[in-house]
């Protein structure tokens, strides 16, 4: 029993830490407050990682552990289940929140509120990753959304508030459909836990099963909005690009992936959902391609990164839905799931790195226009940065997203594309990765030296560069490099978690095989070629036209309706 309750610590410790910080803020002196904040981060973010990792052998041994909150009887209480998926999600969240928090120390506006919010965020994500109850999932998703809206609007910029408002209206209204769906399921089945629903659904008549499918679609689409798969991603770009840099890193790194992995459990409710997976994989590939084309056309540096988040989530969705298509119990399915998880992990790391370094660079330049900013390094030097660390860290992130060895992006993308190989998805994703390289060449031009900026006189240059920015960048860059170098060990860990038998299906020879190296080379050359075409007169005209395409508030609902109709058509007709 005691061991079982330990699994709830990732949920309770951050809430405890948040309350300690709030109490300290109201009653204690400034120094004690600061101490409490550090203490809160240690027990709220670091301690759960440690506990969860210590419980790793337990998970491997038992598979999954069921806990009922408050030790009620199973009919009344809320059922939580801790398995390998929850473990990965919790580690991902807490590991990525930490550098973002360190970065946020450099901007000195309302520290403790930010700390409290991200602690609550990590608690809620722990809840989402473990819950087995539909209504509890609804509550967790809504609270996660509420915290995200507050975080986006926390910067004192008008555009940020507007983006948050837009996101909030869209997401909250779609969550009402989620509620309707859970209502329908409760009426049919009379229970709210996944297992009970799955058990009862099989016994129903085919007409009732169709109603259950409609309810499940109503629940899945709002979650896909949070994931921002292509027609549903209208809210993402503004929300992610207008938010403060640390928040952008958290949003892109964590918040768009957690709902996706929760969906695995919803898909397990009914075997009929299987028909949807292939459609989702095509949607994912299309998302990857369209996202990268739109990214290439952007002039705002952070918008470019936001479109890349959409594109990369397309990769993850493709691999994830193909895993479900083959069945996550089969060897191929579990390898694809591992690939999706590892790509989610490495995307979280390098996208966090990119958002933070580009954020620092654009702040120093005072503009976000990729076409206008030049000589960021000199400007950063003028601000007191002695070594060009920001630039180095940006390039580590960029090389990682371009899938160049030895960084983690190379391993995750190679694995992902190798196992989906003879399919149309593979072709689309390969084209998308050419676009990724072209757009990052475009973005890295902001580091080109410029003659306009003069060097300041040495005696006057006393400004000090905030240490916390460097620390967070170094942590993320090191993580990116280390997860690349130790990719084999990480795959081993994941294999032990997700594959019950003793076989090790991932072949490590695929990474540095002749075909893969040649493919990386060709992709690189293709990227350079595409960049040249894009900067030519004709290319830049097209990109300008793409950039001017605007999306309205209502367009999002049209996309929502289209997706619903598509899913209904696939599943029922």
């Amino acid at each position: 029993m005691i061991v079982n309750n330990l699994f709830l610590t990732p949920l309770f410790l951050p809430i405890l830490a948040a309350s300690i910080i709030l109490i300290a803020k109201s009653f204690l002196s400034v120094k004690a407050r600061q101490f409490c904040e550090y203490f809160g981060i240690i027990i709220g973010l670091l301690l759960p990682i440690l506990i969860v990792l210590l419980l790793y052998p337990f998970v491997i041994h038992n598979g999954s552990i069921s806990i009922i909150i408050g030790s009620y009887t199973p009919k009344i209480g809320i059922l939580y289940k801790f398995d390998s998926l929850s473990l990965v999600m919790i580690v991902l969240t807490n590991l990525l929140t930490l550098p973002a928090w360190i970065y946020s120390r450099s901007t000195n506006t309302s520290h403790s509120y930010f700390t409290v919010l991200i602690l609550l965020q990590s608690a809620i994500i722990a809840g989402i990753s473990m819950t087995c109850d539909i209504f509890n999932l609804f509550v967790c998703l809504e609270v996660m959304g509420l915290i995200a809206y507050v975080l986006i609007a926390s910067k004192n910029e008008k555009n940020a508030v507007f983006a948050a408002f837009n996101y909030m209206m869209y997401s909250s209204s779609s969550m009402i459909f989620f509620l309707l769906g859970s209502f329908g399921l409760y009426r049919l089945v009379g229970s709210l836990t996944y297992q009970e629903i799955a058990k009862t659904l099989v016994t129903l008549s085919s007409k009732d099963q169709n109603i259950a499918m409609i309810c499940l679609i109503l629940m899945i689409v709002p979650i896909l909005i949070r994931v921002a798969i292509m027609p549903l991603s209208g809210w993402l770009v503004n929300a992610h690009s207008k938010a403060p840099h640390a928040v952008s890193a958290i949003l892109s790194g964590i918040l768009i992936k957690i709902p996706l992995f929760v969906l695995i459990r919803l898909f397990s409710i009914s075997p009929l959902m299987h028909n949807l997976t292939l459609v989702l994989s095509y949607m994912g590939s299309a998302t990857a391609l369209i996202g990268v084309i739109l990214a290439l056309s952007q002039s705002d540096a952070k918008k470019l990164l936001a479109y890349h988040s959409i594109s990369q989530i397309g990769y993850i969705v493709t691999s994830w839905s193909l895993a479900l298509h083959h069945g996550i119990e089969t060897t191929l399915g579990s390898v694809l799931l591992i690939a999706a998880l590892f790509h989610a992990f490495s995307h979280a790391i390098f996208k966090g790195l990119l958002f933070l370094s580009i954020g620092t660079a654009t702040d120093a330049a005072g503009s976000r226009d990729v076409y206008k900013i030049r000589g960021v390094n000199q400007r950063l030097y003028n601000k007191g940065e002695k070594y060009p660390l920001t630039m180095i860290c940006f390039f580590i992130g960029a090389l990682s997203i371009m899938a160049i060895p030895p960084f983690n992006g190379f391993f995750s993308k190679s694995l992902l594309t190798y196992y989906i190989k003879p399919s149309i998805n593979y072709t689309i994703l390969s084209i998308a990765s050419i676009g990724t390289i072209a757009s990052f060449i475009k973005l890295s031009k902001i580091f080109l030296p410029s003659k306009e900026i003069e060097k300041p006189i040495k005696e006057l240059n006393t400004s000090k560069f905030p240490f916390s920015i460097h620390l967070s960048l170094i942590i993320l860059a090191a993580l990116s490099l280390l997860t690349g170098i130790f990719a084999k060990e990480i795959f081993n860990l994941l294999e032990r978690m997700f594959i019950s038998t003793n076989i090790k299906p991932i072949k490590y020879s695929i990474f540095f095989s002749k075909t893969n190296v040649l493919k990386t080379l060709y992709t690189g050359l293709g990227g350079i070629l595409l960049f040249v075409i894009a900067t030519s007169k004709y290319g830049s005209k097209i990109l300008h036209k793409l950039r001017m395409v605007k999306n309205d508030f209502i367009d999002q609902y049209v996309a929502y309706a289209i997706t619903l109709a598509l899913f209904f058509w696939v599943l029922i007709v």
Partner: protein
Amino acid sequence: MIIERVLIFFIFITGFIGLISMKNIIKKIIGLNLLTSSVVLLFILEASRIGDEAPIIDNKVQNIVDPIPQALMLTAIVIGVCVTALSLAMAVRLYKTTGSLDIEIIKQRLEDDCE
């Protein structure tokens, strides 16, 4: 039973139209509220199918309504209040910075500021 469902459906549609087609952001927020209320009503109506009495265990448990939807809706109402409060706070911020509540004008003015 059917007449209540039709009425709830009308509340739902009213809320949805308000959310989508109204230009005023306060009206949009009211639309969202109506949407939430209609779903809450639907749950409560459904719970009362099997009984009439309030689900309080006194000395006899007979003819009571299904207690679970009521418990769920309590939580849903709380979430609805949170969303409303936060969105109204944002509406105030938007009005203070742009001087308008019309979503088109707000968007226009924010874009003008950027350029």
